[in-house]
């Protein structure tokens, strides 16, 4: 099947839906494709947390203050153009969502803003109770329904971007529910596929967050930036098994009620790491990277909880207060057999967000004309560490900008589709055959274990070098053509296509992590502790001769925040 559109948007999370809306508003025809259902997959729908924007509703604020907090969290590596755009345009998008009745929580007659860690004042909006992501997704889906000129297609997995004479001209996809190959001619293409946290054993990701967009960008000839910076969320839920809840749900509990982190000896250990460690700033409350360090070291020292994390206790909080703060969530916990007044839960660091991503200019365009990116798929805005609350803000702002700019390009461009340029991807799909392969769903979990153990929050030269050898071995084992069970919705084909992307992206993380011989933000090298001013630069990853190639940007330490 062949489809034609002005703008192809890949991924229907917050960023992709915003991009589609703005591109249509600019007069372009839009095809919004998702490998899952529209507005259901990805990270946005799972977000239970807050969205940062300098609205000045709760307390006087300005986008410059938000920017300065963002740059400080980014440890000197932020792309200031992108960070500025996010902070400056965030408030307008938050108000637009408010007009679309997303339902931001109110405090009296104004939008409520809470003070999240790393911000200098109350700045973060939310939808009660822990419903920010579902409310945002629902609101954007409603706007899509009301808009003209947006065709939405779910179950459509993009296999490769098609590039003709150095210009993006569409994509080759597979329609999962029938298995048929689909070609899509597009005058511009937007990657809005989110991050890569599925690469790790413990993660807060959707199944479809295996870094597809980074692999698509690499193979199209675009560059990636800051790929070594993977954010781990320190207190992801570990045990007992908890269903129907996002694993990062304990953070708002801690902000509001002050949960205690305990080791197996029932010792509250955060204090031990607050002052003594060279990486600590001496504050009592540990930031995300430092809390991750503290829990990992407790586990390493044999003081971890039974499931391999730390205990989190709310036993000091009276039941009435728990209920007042988190009413219906307490009921959900009860349905899971968890009574916080009686028992401890176990938590551990989990992969949560990717700072790195596709390298773009101020129009969200990559180095390949006609190819754009937005949302978490973009690298640079958050540098070495993301400030809490910035993920959905960047989804809105970068999504809107990418949609506007991609539409402008598309409306000025002539159709550039080329069957010849699409042939390699189509031939790969057609070469799929019924054959015996090792169980590739096992290969996925092997890769997740490898990344967690050797390319996790704490790294060494030895571990990273081993990881790269193993990733190469797995990639050669995967082979050049997918297996097939010859039917619709083929899980074997999906696993193969996923692994093809995941292995490429895993290497795109490990290679710059090995090169960066310092510790900064989310990249911590046990063999190179401490920040090195000489490393105040961004590393650029691209594909050269089919393999990952690394380059260094200029030192940007003059921009490093004091």
């Amino acid at each position: 099947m062949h489809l034609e559109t002005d703008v192809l948007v890949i991924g229907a999370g917050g960023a992709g839906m915003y991009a589609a809306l703005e591109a249509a508003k600019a007069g372009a025809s839009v095809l919004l494709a998702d490998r899952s259902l529209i507005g259901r997959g990805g990270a946005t729908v799972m977000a239970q947390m807050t969205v940062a924007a300098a609205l000045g509703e709760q307390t006087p604020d300005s986008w410059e203050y938000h920017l300065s907090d963002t740059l400080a969290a980014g440890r000197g590596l932020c792309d200031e153009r992108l960070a500025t755009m996010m902070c400056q345009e965030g408030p307008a998008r938050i108000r637009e969502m408010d007009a679309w009745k997303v339902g931001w929580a109110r405090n009296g007659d104004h939008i409520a803003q809470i003070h999240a860690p790393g911000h200098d004042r109350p700045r973060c909006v939310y939808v009660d109770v822990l419903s920010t992501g579902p409310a945002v997704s629902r609101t954007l889906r409603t706007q899509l329904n009301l808009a003209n000129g947006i065709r939405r297609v779910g179950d459509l997995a993009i296999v490769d971007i098609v590039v003709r004479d150095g210009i993006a001209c569409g994509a080759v996809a597979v329609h999962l529910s029938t298995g048929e190959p689909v070609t899509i001619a597009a005058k511009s293409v937007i990657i809005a596929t989110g991050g890569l946290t599925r690469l790790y054993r413990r993660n807060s990701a959707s199944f479809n967050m295996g870094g597809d967009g980074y692999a698509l960008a690499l193979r199209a000839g675009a560059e990636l930036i800051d790929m070594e910076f993977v954010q781990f969320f320190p207190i992801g839920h570990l045990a007992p098994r908890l269903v129907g809840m996002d694993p990062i749900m304990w953070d708002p509990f801690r902000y509001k009620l002050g949960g205690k982190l305990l080791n197996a000896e029932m010792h509250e250990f955060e204090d031990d790491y607050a002052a003594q460690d060279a990486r600590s700033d001496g504050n009592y409350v540990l930031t995300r990277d430092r809390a991750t360090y503290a829990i990992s070291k407790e586990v390493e020292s044999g003081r971890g909880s039974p499931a391999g994390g730390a205990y989190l206790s709310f036993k000091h909080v009276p039941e009435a207060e728990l209920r007042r703060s988190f009413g219906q969530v307490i009921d959900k916990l009860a349905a899971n057999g968890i009574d916080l007044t009686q028992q401890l839960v176990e938590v551990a660091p989990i992969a949560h967000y990717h700072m790195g991503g596709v390298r773009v200019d101020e129009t969200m365009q990559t180095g390949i004309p006609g190819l754009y990116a937005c949302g978490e798929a973009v690298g640079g805005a958050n540098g070495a560490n993301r400030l809490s609350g910035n993920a959905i803000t960047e989804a809105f702002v970068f999504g809107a900008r990418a949609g506007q700019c991609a539409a402008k390009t598309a409306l000025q461009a002539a159709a550039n589709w080329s069957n010849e340029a699409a042939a390699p991807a189509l031939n790969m799909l057609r070469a799929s055959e019924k054959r015996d392969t090792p169980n590739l769903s096992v290969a996925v979990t092997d890769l997740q274990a490898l990344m967690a153990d050797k390319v996790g929050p704490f790294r060494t030269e030895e571990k990273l070098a081993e990881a790269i050898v193993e990733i190469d071995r797995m990639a050669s084992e995967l082979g050049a053509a997918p297996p097939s069970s010859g039917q619709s919705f083929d899980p074997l084909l999906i696993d193969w296509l996923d692994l093809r992307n995941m292995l490429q992206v895993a290497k795109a993380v490990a290679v710059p992590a090995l090169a960066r011989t310092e510790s900064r933000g989310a990249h911590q090298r046990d063999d190179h502790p401490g920040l090195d001013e000489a490393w105040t630069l961004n590393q650029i990853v691209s594909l050269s001769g089919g393999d990952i190639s690394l380059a260094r940007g200029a030192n940007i330490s003059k921009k490093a925040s004091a």
Partner: protein
Amino acid sequence: MKAILEIKRGTPGAEPHIETFEVAFEHGQSILDGLRAVRHETDPTLAFRFACINANACKECMMLIDGKVDYACTVRLKEGVTTLAPLPKKALVRDLVTEIAPPDERLHGKG
């Protein structure tokens, strides 16, 4: 603990058949955990739909569980037999996967 999953499998137009899988589980684990274990340990060709895994946010894993429409990510595994079947009122795609997208969000379903 061991759960026995009796799964109605098949493709459109073909006579469906029941396949039985045994999976070990721990208290609190979901049907979706069990289905993922089946793919991992026994049969990687088993088809079912899900995105968010755990949060009950994506709502994609709806199926017939012991005869009742429910989410595989929130119903717990139990000892003994659990029957799983695709949604009866939706077009079958494969195994437990049905066409649940609104018609105007499908490749072939427009209008």
